[in-house]
């Protein structure tokens, strides 16, 4: 009897915490998203689903821009991370763990502080651009900050390790004997890569996409620090509605729309590639 109860007693405190502060808040956010009112006179539940329509119409541009930036950042991250993960998995030998530690070390600096440092680096009169302007290699009015390039660059930078690690894990699992067998069967190096190694590493790429696309699309710190008014993402709008305008129903409706879009995307993606594999790869 006591043994039967044991797992429940162990799971109870943490499970309750997750239930009360993860699941219940979603219900409250759903409720807030259909309310009407303002912060002075209070909010009332009127089941005004038009909040969603209003939010979508007003902030269509930011939604589309977020998806675009997220997609661009994710593709860039794959392109940058894959060769590096490949080299660490197959060529770094005994130094593997050192290289992995190096990939993770930037994480010991606050996310916000790293992004602010990029702002220093890319400043119009900063240490990267000023010398190039002085020597005439760049026009004097050239700038990177306040552009989409800066925001996508910042997103790619901040989430790159989340792409490197899953790809590395997948490549690391590729059995070297399979690679040898491919060579024994007269495949060229290129064929071995495209027909053996690459397909075997795809679950890692899928996991990486899951771990970078979602947070990139919901990010607002990069757009706020590195971008300008023309680069605001949906996260910036939600943050402003909640914390500056105190328009909680609009913020909640936008958050729910964002989450629904992401869930549809994730499920479509998982369905196309096999739910089990994608979820397993992402949790690992």
């Amino acid at each position, binding site marked *: 009897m006591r043994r039967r109860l*044991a797992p*429940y007693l162990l799971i109870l*405190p*943490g499970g309750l915490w*997750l239930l009360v502060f993860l699941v219940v808040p979603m219900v409250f956010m759903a409720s807030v998203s259909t309310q009407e009112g303002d912060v002075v006179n209070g909010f009332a539940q009127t089941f005004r689903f038009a909040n969603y329509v209003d939010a979508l119409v007003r902030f269509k541009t930011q939604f589309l821009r977020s998806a675009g930036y997220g997609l661009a950042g994710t593709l860039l991250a794959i392109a940058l991370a894959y060769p590096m993960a490949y080299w660490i998995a197959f060529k770094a030998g005994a130094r593997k763990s050192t290289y992995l530690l190096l990939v993770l070390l930037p994480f*010991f600096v*606050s996310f916000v502080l790293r992004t602010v440092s990029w702002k220093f680096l890319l400043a119009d009169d900063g240490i990267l651009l000023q010398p190039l302007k002085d020597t005439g290699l760049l026009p004097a009015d050239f700038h990177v900050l306040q552009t989409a390039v800066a925001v996508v660059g910042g997103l790619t930078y901040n989430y790159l390790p989340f792409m490197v690690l899953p790809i590395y894990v997948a490549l690391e699992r590729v059995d070297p004997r399979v690679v040898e067998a491919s060579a024994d069967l007269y495949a060229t190096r290129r064929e071995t890569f495209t027909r053996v190694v690459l397909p075997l590493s795809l679950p890692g790429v899928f996991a990486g996409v899951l*771990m970078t696309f979602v947070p990139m699309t919901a990010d607002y710190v990069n757009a706020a620090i590195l971008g300008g008014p023309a680069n605001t993402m949906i996260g910036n709008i939600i943050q402003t509605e909640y*914390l500056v305008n105190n328009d909680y129903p609009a913020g909640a409706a936008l958050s729910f729309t964002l989450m629904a879009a992401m869930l549809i995307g994730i499920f479509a993606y998982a369905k196309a590639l096999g739910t089990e594999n994608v979820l397993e790869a992402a949790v690992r």
Partner: protein
Amino acid sequence: MSGPVSPAVPATAAPELGPVRRSRKRWGDRLLYGYTWLILLWLFAPIAVMIAFGFNDTKSKSNVSWQGFTFKWWGRLGDYPDLTTAVVNSITIALLATVVTTVLGTLMGIALGRYRFRGQAATNLVMFAAISSPELVMGASLLSLFISVGVQTGYATVVLAHVLFSVSFVAVTVRARVVGLDRSIEEAARDLGASTWITFWRVTFPMILPGVVSGALLAFALSIDDFVITQFTSGATITFPLWIYGAVRIGVPPQVNILGTLIFAVGVAIAVINSITARRRA
């Protein structure tokens, strides 16, 4: 492609390929090696800037262009009392959240790793949701709850939120360790007359301790760095990342760079010690 693989090839290397191909292969390897370091350089560029600009002899509050080397800011670390408060808040919040998270997460990890029970799949699903849902949505929904119920956001709600987003990571880390345990050692302890309680504390717990420690370190790191969920749940309480974010528009003083450098140094030291002891254990 030429014949069988020579036995001298290390297990992870691609098969040997003839002389011409080998030189091309070397070139490819060198290219990849250089590329990897280029990316690492990119990853470390802003950190180098952060460290360097803590020594910048800047005249104004904004700290963007290099104006000479100085140590003076190290002596004036406490110039901004609210910045000091923010750093203290960050550290105490991280410590509190880590203690609660580690206890809750370890219990969950043991339950998930050791037992099969009804509701296990549901627990896994909720944990997966906690790990994968965007911070923005988590923060917004928590604030919706606090507003609806009328809870004042502040220090306590930040700790609560930090426990929420890190508990699953600890549970997963501990579960991995529990699953890998050799149960026969516990059985031996029981055969030798140890009670369930004694067996747990003297045999099981020491064996899962490495998992608990790395889970705790992860929870601390996640907490001290968090910005998004903290911003939504903090009310008037300011943490280190929040202070920096607030200062961006008016200029970030060199003290921020120094504090960032110190936190970085402590983090690196812990990571290196952890990896060395892990290697020794293995």
